């Protein structure tokens, strides 16, 4: 439990102070390059925080990664080159936007496939309802019919 508290506390500290995220001294002079750096870092996960991008995180490691991204950009790398550079070093875990290769394709096609299946079944259902015969009785048991008659009297 103590271990957990420490862990939680450190996580929350990481979460608590993102006003230190991008430091003024990190910002590149070229605004176009800087804006690319921001876009790239918003899509990279901070390894020591939970579910935070390096752009939001104040952790040292996140700062190192931000500086690395900017370094590569200044060297003239394209955005995909920067990404693959980072992934080579830190693994695919850092990508907040999962790749589309291999099994991940299941994840990406899930939404459209589910949607099409759901719409098709809904369509079939609607067609059935349209052609269904109008039910004759009100579906009430004899007791209920009696009670209904009583209620309708007053």
């Amino acid at each position, binding site marked *: 439990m103590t271990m957990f508290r420490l862990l939680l506390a450190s996580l*929350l500290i990481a979460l*608590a*102070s993102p*006003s230190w995220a991008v430091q*003024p001294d990190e910002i590149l002079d070229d605004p176009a390059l800087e804006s690319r750096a921001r876009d790239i870092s918003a899509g990279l996960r901070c390894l020591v925080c939970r579910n935070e991008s390096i752009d939001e995180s104040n952790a040292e490691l996140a700062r190192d990664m931000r500086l690395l991204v900017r370094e590569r950009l200044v060297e003239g790398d394209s955005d995909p080159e920067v990404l693959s550079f980072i992934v080579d070093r830190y693994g695919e*875990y850092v990508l*907040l936007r999962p790749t589309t290769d291999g099994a991940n394709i299941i994840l990406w096609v*899930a939404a459209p496939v589910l949607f099409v299946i759901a719409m098709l079944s809904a369509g079939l259902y609607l067609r059935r309802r349209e052609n269904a015969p109008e039910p004759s009785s009100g579906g009430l048991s004899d007791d209920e019919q009696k009670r209904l008659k009583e209620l309708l009297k007053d």
Partner: protein
Amino acid sequence: MIIELGHFALILAFAVAMAQSIIPLVGAHKGWRDWMVVANPMATVQFLLVAFSYAALTYSFLVSDFSVKLVVDNSHTLKPLIYKISGVWGNHEGSLLLWVLILALFGASAAWFGGNLPASLQARVLAVQSAITAAFMAFTLFTSNPFTRLVSPPFDGTDLNPLLQDPGLAFHPPFLYLGYVGLSMAFSFAVAALIEGRVDAAWGRWVRPWTLAAWVFLTIGIATGSWWAYYELGWGGFWFWDPVENASLMPWLFAAALLHSAIVVEKRETLKSWTILLAILGFGFSLMGTFIVRSGLLTSVHAFAMDPERGVFILMILAAFMGGALTLFAIRAPVLEAKGVFATVSRESALVVNNVLLAVSSFVIFIGTMWPLVAEMLFDRVLSVGPPFFNMAFTPFMVALAMVLPIGAMLPWKRGNLSRALRPLWGLAAFSVAMGAVTWALQTGNSPLVPVGLALGLWVVLGAMADVWARTGRGGLGNRLKRLGRLPRADWGKFTAHTGFGVSMFAVAALVGWESEDIRVVQIGESFDKGGYTLTLTSVDRVQGPNYVSTMGTLEAHRDGRLITTLQPEKRFYPIAGMPTTEAAIDYKIHRDLYITLGDPQDNGGWAVRTYIKPFANWLWFGCFLMALGGIFSLSDRRYRIAAGADRTRTDAVPAE
């Protein structure tokens, strides 16, 4: 002593809950009336016992009884009173007891206000509800006892996590729990109806208020959580697609689907088995959320516990209730014969589309949330699924929902005519698109986000107005205005909630698309320009708070030489918990928030200052507020207030055609 009494009361309540989950079921099966009605006093007793137990725990927080482990871990004598109260649920054990309290409260309400339910249905509802409560009581008592004492009590506590010492977060969990647990009522009604083998319009009418209430609470809970993140985390993010946030969004979407499909059951006696399934899955996703938060399986910033034992226990609860309910569903669903016949173009069909969009979007979030786990177990890949995926996969569903909503809302029940329904809407659609186009032309930059968001939001809001206006029927303007005031509250609920959806949609687009940011080092006395304001850092001071020390900057915002506002962003440090927090200073205005946070002192004597202009941020919370308010209007509709019983449904039922 009081603590032991509280503990004992919980054990007693557990015994009552177990009895209550069996006796009424047997009674309903055999037709023994006294075995059925005993559920009512039992539900009341159970609630009183849990309430006492909860009060005992709260008392130990109020008097700072540091012989109780939970109080030591989560409180401190210097902590303000309100956070002593909220500290009770600011941890795993206490929040679980709150869950149990709310479960018992909902069960007792079904006993108190369910007098007009058929006796066997009520008995079964109370039994199922009580079974859920019993399971969670066992969880509390056996794995997470909040009443554990310490052998040698310390002099003072270790304080509540400072992040939780905030009014927004203090009231975020109770509302979420009310929502999660509210869905348990819909679940209990669904399972009871499956046991009965009967779902009719009356059932739809009974289950809908519970669903509405749960949805309203979830809306408020999610909105306060998101608002808290906005002002507390220091850069104005409001949604992170964190597993725990997803855990609350999934049941919210299901509840939204359920409260729409329950209308179809109530008015048209069709979509029955689908509605039952939604009620089961809605609560299933609530349990899933609890599991995600408390098992630590999906690590997340707000996960309470990383304790496998607890995770396994919740997984067992989840498996038992979902497995049982779905099996029952598979056996009984074919018996639930649909009655209403309707054409493909009709309100019924529109609500089916609504349900498809809401349910599928929820499943997509589910898949995205679980995918890292699946990928690691099955494909040996450690990866992340973050905001870029969710934004891309989820947004189209909301866009589609916004597009069809005004049309569906105008279609009549049973059989509609698309061109007639569209007649009053063409102008509104054209106007919305035109406004979007104007925005596109006027804005700097070329992101289509805000123009599209504006067009959709406007379309939804105008559509809601057209709908309410159409409800006044024909005749002169005066007559129609008069009739406007006499419309049922459910109509106003629909109008308000749909308007809220449109407003939120626009606000999200504006906030994401038009936000601008400025990061710089500022010397004391130095000025800089941002978004038409001249900001001057006049001083940075150290301020002593009740249980923290603060570094407080003071900035003056001028516009055209006139002082607009003075902002005081802070960096706080809580020495007892050893944690820093950021307190952003925000100037709230109707068209934008001016949002400033103070960073670190720099080597050259200046301070890092971040300034954001957040356009239309307030509209987001206002939209959520409208959605919740709409739910409350619907909840207060006459048909739920006055005799929601079976005897009424047939007589004052709303005309179907």
